[in-house]
């Protein structure tokens, strides 16, 4: 099998000072932060940035966050899920204020990306906050006027955990060629057909694309979720090279 190829990124990445210009509440535990980053070089949907905090004694902590949308001039959007006992996300959610500086560095990552010139159908499979880089792809598709067929399968614990709920409802209605299906693992909404369950073969088979259409598949979420979905896709005949994954969190 040929080695996967990626675009080479040129030049060193520098830390830039960013400031908070807008904050949106997405769920009880997730917020979108819009940052102004003077000199932002632009990025591709699916890439991420490193965010670095500095304490008064000089101590620094950095974490990676997926970019939530395509570039908007010097503005970038991150959606941060609060990690219990976390070090960086609780600060960004609860303490970080309008106009405050943080440092950001990026964009990083040239593999888990979707480029607007792609023509293959796309399957996006999100677990929890794994929807963030996939939403960046949905937004980039819309911004570019792309008509590539997109399907999103989004697994969440309960309806209240759906990030971008209103926008996804609107886009599923207005963006032609975008279908959105939900899998609820703990509590389904009123009137939902079926019982809460973890994502399985029937979900991927029903809401994904047949392998012979050779879609590009992007799977992002907690490790166990990604392992399950990637294995299902390979079992359904999808080429491993067309199944791109991004995992986060402990193995459980």
């Amino acid at each position: 099998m040929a080695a996967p190829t990626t675009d080479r990124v040129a030049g060193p990445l520098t830390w830039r000072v960013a400031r908070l210009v807008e904050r949106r509440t997405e769920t009880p535990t997730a917020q979108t932060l819009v940052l102004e980053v003077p000199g932002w070089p632009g990025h591709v949907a699916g890439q991420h940035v490193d965010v670095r905090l500095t304490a008064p004694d000089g101590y620094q902590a950095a974490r990676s966050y997926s970019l939530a949308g395509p570039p908007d001039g010097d503005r970038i959007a991150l959606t941060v899920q609060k990690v219990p006992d976390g070090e960086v996300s609780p600060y960004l959610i609860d303490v970080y204020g309008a106009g405050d500086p943080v440092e950001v560095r990026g964009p990083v990552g040239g593999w888990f990306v979707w480029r607007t010139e792609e023509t293959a159908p796309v399957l996006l499979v999100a677990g929890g906050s794994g929807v963030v880089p996939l939403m960046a792809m949905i937004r980039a598709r819309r911004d570019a006027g792309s008509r590539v067929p997109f399907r999103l399968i989004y697994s969440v614990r309960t309806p209240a955990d759906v990030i971008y709920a209103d926008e996804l409802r609107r886009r599923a209605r207005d963006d032609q060629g975008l279908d959105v299906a939900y899998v609820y693992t703990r509590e389904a909404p009123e009137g939902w057909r079926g019982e809460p369950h973890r994502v399985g073969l029937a979900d991927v088979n029903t809401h994904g694309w047949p392998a012979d259409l050779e879609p590009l598949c992007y799977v992002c979420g907690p490790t166990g979720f990604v392992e399950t979905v990637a294995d299902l896709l390979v079992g359904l005949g999808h080429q491993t090279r067309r199944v791109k994954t991004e995992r986060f969190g402990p193995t459980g």
Partner: protein
Amino acid sequence: MSPGFQGRPRSAEPALPPGQYLTEDFPVLSAGPTPRVPLDTWEFVVTAEGGVEFRWTWDELMSLPQDMPTVDIHCVTRWSKLGTSWQGVSLDTLLEGIDTGARYALVHSYGGYTTNLPLDDLRGGRAWVAHTYDGGPLPAEHGGPARLLVPHLYFWKSAKWVRGIRLLVDDKPGFWETAGYHDYGDPWREQRYQGD
């Protein structure tokens, strides 16, 4: 710099490379689905720069002298895990008797992943083909049946599902290195991305 940010209490933290935090879990970072490699078809191949190949089957690998390194590992995504215990075959053992003037190695995996490093970094008791983790067979999501283990570099250099190594006269970037990550990846110098 970041108003109101204090960070975690740090007095009890052991020495970690800069920018790393400790984890007790073993997170997984991979670019695609987990390959499943049957042991009866598994092989490990070192290809010298002239094209001569040196092959080991699974049974042959197991019959070689085994090391049991206990090492700290550091992922570029900033987690570090201390005191991990492994069993595997030293690259010194595998490279012994291979006549080469190559200075670089391009490691390749089942599934197509590649990563590059200087050949010297595979020598001197610092690198293994590891097949056992924490007393048991290495799980597939962590690179089983066998992965490279090069703990002094960021963990993406420790290629999972390792299949072979090409010895090269000239350096050739691998998968993540082509995607903007550092060619060498020394955690103590924070060589994360190109230009670091």
